[in-house]
């Protein structure tokens, strides 16, 4: 089973993301800021990271920089999930090594299509008409 690290300082968002991703077959680990997320990655590298941008202690952008420099840190697919929804933030994230980008608010369909895009989940047979 693939593991997804959900990093967000909002417990509500983590809970919603957990429900969506568990339904998609992921094992979930939660972290409430970038520093705690890095600790989690040192313990065991996840296959996927769903990453908020603005968080106390260490933000998502800084976390991504540290992650990509860690041994094995280029492996996880990182999908930002943030209220930062302007081109400037998106470009910076992609430059720093993010694989995909979700602008909040999000729903199950958006998470599913983004995770398909980076090859974390298989395509469904078809989308409903």
């Amino acid at each position, binding site marked *: 089973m693939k593991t997804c690290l959900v990093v967000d300082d909002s417990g509500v968002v983590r809970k919603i993301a957990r429900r969506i991703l568990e339904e998609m077959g992921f094992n979930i680990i939660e972290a409430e800021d970038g520093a705690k997320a890095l600790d989690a990655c040192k313990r065991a590298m996840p296959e996927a990271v769903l990453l908020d941008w603005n968080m106390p202690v260490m933000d998502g952008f800084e976390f991504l920089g540290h992650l990509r420099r860690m041994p094995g840190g280029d492996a996880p697919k990182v999908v930002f999930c943030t209220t930062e929804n302007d*081109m400037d933030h998106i470009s910076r994230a*992609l430059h720093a090594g993010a694989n995909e980008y979700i602008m909040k608010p999000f729903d199950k369909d958006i998470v599913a299509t983004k995770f*398909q895009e980076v090859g974390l989940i298989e395509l469904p047979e078809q989308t409903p*008409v």
Partner: protein
Amino acid sequence: MTPPDYEYLRKLLKDLSGLDLSADKQYLIESRLLPLSRKRGLAGISELVQKMKSGSASLVAQVVDAMTTNETFFFRDKVPFDHFRDTIMPEVLKARAGRKSIRIWCAAGSTGQEPYSLAMCLKEMSGALAGWRVEIIATDLSQEVLEKSKAGIYSQFEVQRGLPIQLLVKHFKQNGEFWQISPEIRAMVAHRQLNLLHDFSQLGAFDVIFCRNVLIYFDQDTKINVFGRLARSMEADGFLVLGAAETVVGLTDVFKPFPDKRGLYRPSGARGTFAPAATAMPRMAAIAGR
């Protein structure tokens, strides 16, 4: 909704758009038409039907729009676009190397996500297409939908369904809460209002036709008829792409499935010899509609 009101709407939709509602789709009509009724200041479906019967053509058009417009998204189902890039285009590039022109038709272009997805695919291949004339024609039944397609403006939700983030960065410009596709991509797509039930031979012959998720709403005879005319609007070595829930098998032999590529078909060369109607079960809706 009274049964006569339902019958009236069902017949009208079938005649005007080909939409073939079975006897139990009251909920669908209510979910689509109650908001429209409210917008027009009408009390409900009965009053809406009264108004339509009294001859309000604009209202009839809005009803058809509301019932036939469906949500779509960029690179919907993904597989057809893989077929387009990996199977269709390499063949077309070879076959048309002489005349260096490609004509593509999105027969249910809707709000633009499908034709623009194809345009973005082609943009990625611009090296191989240098000096080629590429035409994408998007048609739809609804003028309102076509206007949205032409504008190429999408909500944050819409640009997140199926569109890879790199393509958003590359081809879209942000304007407040909305995202507009670039003038360059928009210029690759021509728009035309068109009802598939009517003659479309004036559009000419195409190398590639995307006709996805529209025929499922048609009854069997209409499907067979449209397939026959699509075949006549296509080059002998062209490609037809259908939706994942659609097929020609058991309906017509004018197209044959492309081996191992789901949803992909080519003209068979047989022109208009149809599978015998007796092998197929006519649907109740099709009979009741007459």
